[in-house]
């Protein structure tokens, strides 16, 4: 019997991981705050640790955690940053 699938059966290729940095000295790290509760506290601590390792940081804030980041946010991270850290969940 032939059935019609409810799924989008397109196969998507796996995105390769970007190369990992050898060290963080001088790296520009985007800290993405998705506005989940206490995510900013997590990023504050990460920021301290990154600074201690010689990285520069800058903050980017999503409008709301439950929606995908806008292309504008992604572009800002890609234009300015070498790396990104995202604070997920509570």
């Amino acid at each position, binding site marked *: 019997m032939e059935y*019609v*699938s409810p*799924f*989008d059966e397109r196969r998507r290729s796996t995105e390769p991981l970007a190369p990992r940095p050898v060290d963080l000295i001088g790296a520009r790290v985007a800290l993405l705050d998705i506005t989940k509760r206490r995510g900013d506290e997590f990023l504050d601590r990460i920021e301290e640790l990154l600074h201690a390792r010689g990285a520069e940081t800058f903050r980017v804030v999503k409008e709301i955690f*439950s*929606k*995908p980041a806008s292309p504008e946010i992604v572009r800002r991270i890609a234009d300015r940053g070498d790396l990104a850290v995202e604070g997920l969940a509570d």
Partner: protein
Amino acid sequence: MTTLTRAPEFSLPSTTGDAVRLAGLHERGPALLLFVSEECPTCSLTLRRLAPVVPELTAAGVRVASVFEDPLEVAARVARRTAFAGVVLSEPSPYETSRAYGLESLPTSVLIDRDGREAGRVVGWDAAGLRTLLSVPVTDEPPLRKPGCAAKNTYDPDELRLLDGAGYDELEEMFERGWTDGLPVIPPTVQRVEAMLGGRDPSRLLGEMAPAMARVTLERVAACAVLAGCRPEYFPVVVAAVEAVLEPAFNVGGQAVTTQPCGQVLVVNGPVRDAIGLNGSVGALGPGWRANMTIGRALRLVVSLTGGGYPGRLDRSTLGNPGKVAMCFAEDEEVSPWEPLHASRGFSESSSVVTVIGADAPLSISDHRSTGPEELARVLGEAAAATWSPNWWPLGGVSLFVICPEHARSFSEWGWSKERVREEMFSTVVRSAGSLRWGEATPLVNAAPDDQHVRKWDSPDDIVIVVAGGEAGRYSAVFGPCLGMNTEPISKEVQWNT
């Protein structure tokens, strides 16, 4: 020197939808053909035991294909059950290929070399024989040998007729594919989906749905509507509901994956209700009415199957809620003393409209004693005070109230409009900030002086009222909100001709 015989060529349907030829299997290296059938336990054992070595054989350049003396859907089912990851081919009656290979019993494993010649065969389950034939470490778990069953090409026609389709259950097949919400579904055959589409363009794209970022085509929506049990005349309502949830302002992707219990509530207004038998009267919130149950379910299947928000996978709802199975009802406009929901939202009363609201499970509100409109409005409003969390004020989201006909009639007899009821709820459901500052309080409450009054809603507009339910009984209900999603109710006109 042994002379190898040329293996008979074949072209057989595969579970990927393409026909597969023997020449295609051995064009780059050897091929292993596993002739099997569903009814034979030794065949299942062989597939299960060879499944772990299929990747190794594949890596070594050997194409592994099972050839079932069964219909394709049966072959696919057995392959799934046995975790067999090779090519799956079907050779149903009259079994010309298995006869050409001279098969007397199954399983029979035949190794074909790169030139298309038979390099060896093993009949039945024979661990040592297969190890020698394949040069891979086949399991030495007992039994080491087990005879198989007669190949179907050796059966006489009367026996075959008795066996035809035996052991296959189409409804179980749907569960095995995962095309379900846990309840039985109607298999979406090509014919049923075509009937659901009713001549509409199956490739019409309604949008992309998160989290799978799946292309939601009319055909996939129709497949979900069939699975859910919809009749074709319900389809325009399902399509309007899907169009509504795909509006970015609804944020269906967020709702689909959140740990919250929220589901999607559908309220239907206008003439389409009567045309398709959508209930807004006794037992409106279900169960009991096919249109209500299956339209709500169809939308949920689009969200969970097509959209990828399947419970326990990407849908991380901590508890879920029965409204995530199906929640669709009509407003009883004929009984309501007030303007119907769609008219309040700017549509003409003669149009048919679906309004979708992200919401928690309904909470019933009993009131048989209130003697005036202020009292009854306060009872209804206070029932919502504890929704989301007792101390989360204001909600910052929408509460959907379903007012039963007896309550609605009382308000009407007291001369109260729907707007007056909403205003009363809004203004009387109030607390001092100090009394709310425990447990999960809002930033507004935490920052406010103790004696500042805080309301449950930001505005009367966050109180949505519809009328539905049986003629007897003073039980209304409120659906708690879906928060943190920036979601808002969305209404879409049903493209349906009266």
